[in-house]
């Protein structure tokens, strides 16, 4: 039924086969429909052989119905990336650098949030909502407090260092403080501050309570009652 003109191009259309050769193919029946189908079937059945040219399209059978449960968009699966090993993700954590780059959070954003939470707390109704807001507020305040304490410590250390440097320049031999010594000096400075602002009593009271609670476990336990 199909005109032989069409079967000329049933083979690779991109090959420039001379017309005479095509006519010869036609004459010996190699462009016959059944022959072509048989050839194609053997190639497909032979399996996924590596194509001689990988730029060519892949060939598949057209007779296998596509099931309902199918991959509707075929393509390379998206590769997951692990941020721990990705060179583009993060890098080593440097606290000093991080805190200096994100200082704006502690200087602007968190105080704003605290203000907003306080205002919301004033208006809020219902125990759950208030509890939730209160928790958030506490977190924000503690974050700020922690950052302030860190900065104060850093500041103190820097002051000590500069004093020492000045002394060394004046002629003294260089002397590096132990960590415990530094802590003691910090504590002393803290006490001075508290005394100056008048909060020392409250602070000492809190401290005492905490230590008492910790030491409570060392009290003698009541004897277990024999059953």
């Amino acid at each position, binding site marked *: 039924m199909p*005109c032989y003109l069409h079967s000329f191009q049933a083979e690779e259309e991109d090959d420039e086969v001379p017309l005479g050769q095509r006519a010869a193919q036609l004459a010996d029946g190699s462009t016959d429909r059944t022959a072509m189908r048989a050839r194609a079937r053997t190639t497909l059945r032979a399996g996924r052989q590596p194509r001689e040219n990988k730029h060519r399209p892949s060939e598949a059978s057209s007779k296998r119905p596509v099931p309902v449960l*199918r991959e*509707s968009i075929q393509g390379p699966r998206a590769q997951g990336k692990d941020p721990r090993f990705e060179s583009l993700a993060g890098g080593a954590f440097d606290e000093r650098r991080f805190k200096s780059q994100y200082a704006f959070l502690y200087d602007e954003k968190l105080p704003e949030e605290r203000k907003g939470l306080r205002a919301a707390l004033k208006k809020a109704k219902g125990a759950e909502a208030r509890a939730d807001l209160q928790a958030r507020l506490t977190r924000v305040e503690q974050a700020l407090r922690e950052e302030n304490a860190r900065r104060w410590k850093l500041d103190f250390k820097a002051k000590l260092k500069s004093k020492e440097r000045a002394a060394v320049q004046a002629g003294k031999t260089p002397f590096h403080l132990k960590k415990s010594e530094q802590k003691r000096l910090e504590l002393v400075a803290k006490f001075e501050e508290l005394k100056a602002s008048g909060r020392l009593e409250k602070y000492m009271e809190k401290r005492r309570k905490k230590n008492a609670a910790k030491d409570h476990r060392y009290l003698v336990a009541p004897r277990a009652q024999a059953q």
Partner: protein
Amino acid sequence: MARPGGQRGSRGQPPKRKKRDEFFEDEDAVDFFEDAGDNQAGEEADEGEPSSDEEETAEQKRLRLAKEYLAGIRAVEAAGRDGAEDGASDEDGLDAAVDRRLRQDAAEAMGWAQRALAARVVLPEGVPRSIPGQKLHRGHSQSVTALALTADDRTLYSVSKDGTILRHDIESGNRERMSSGAAAGPSGAPAAHWVTACTSRRGGGSRVVHVWDTRAGLAPIKSFPGHKDAVTALAFRLGTHELFSGSLDRSVKLWSLDDLAYVDSLFGHQAEVLALDALRTERVLSVGGDRTCRLWKIPEETQLIFRGYHPVIESCAFTKGGEWVTGAADGALGLWSAARKKPLQSIRAAHSAEADASPLGSIGGNAAAGVLSVAVCPASDLVATGAGDGLVRLWSLDKGTKGTKGLSQLGGLPARGFVNGLAVARSGRFVAAGMGQEPRMGRWGRDGKARNGVLILPLTLRAEDAAEE
């Protein structure tokens, strides 16, 4: 052009030929000049098998016609050469010229050659609101969804969401209704032949392919149920009465209109089939929502799978046997070759400003950007594409040393609305655009100011000599 069911008769041996291939002596050489361009096969459809008495006569007739054809070409070439050079010892040169001419004609007829039309197109400066001579054929109350132009460029069939098929006469501008109210659904797609085929909303839903005979009447002569979901694309194999249909049920089905029967189903698409195209060979191209183009080799029962970087591909058209152009939902155009699994060229924001195109492409980001239709002027290098951005863009196929290199834009013609169907005349004289207020497959965009109908946009072509200078 080639008759369906052509017979390979015994070859007559003409007295003397200098180095001719056997090919040209066969019966189908006759077809090249007998009905060049005219696809009205009504009169030749029922040629039965010639009996043994008549075989000689038919053969002799073919021989005579072939000789006349050759003589005609020879005369033309000789006349052309007389003006240029002296006729002395020119026999071989003339033979070579005739040889060349015959090969060119054969190549054009078989779809291998491309006329250089794109270089001759003259487009208006800038983009005017309308070009002189353009005509909107109204008559559809809703968006036109598909178009088909006959090979002689005289008749156009259009189908629309309102369920009607209209036959348009290009010269006179007359329209007449062809269907009798069997609704043509949003995926109707007529084909240029003496029958048109279209899907219906009622009477089986849009899953049924109805076939009308343009000579017979308003009722379809046959209906083909079989698809499990709406039919979205239809295409005829050129020169035959084989019909391909693609559907939302992911299959492509073959129907024979000579036998009015179902022939075959092709499976492989993982999502809906949105467009089909076919040339003369037993290969059909389908594109769809699974972002692939698939070239089906029908006799071998295999498919070639092509993947690019596009989202859903909505339209396709062959430029020649092994190359085609596709349009995607994000406005990207692709130029493909059957030898490469990835597109030869991918143009990202073909129908929108480059600034609007997001780096990842977008589906549904801009409803007006999706390329809804692509059409190629047969056997030439002129391509037209249409989307919802108000322009029918014209492109030319650039050839490099190794074949087609890519598409380059020539310009645009104004066409307000969604261009759901496109057809370029074989002569290159006009472009027919099926316009609608809504896109073909749905209603995710609407341009209320656009007009539903078929817009005929005339193309100005420079004369051939002028183009060569």
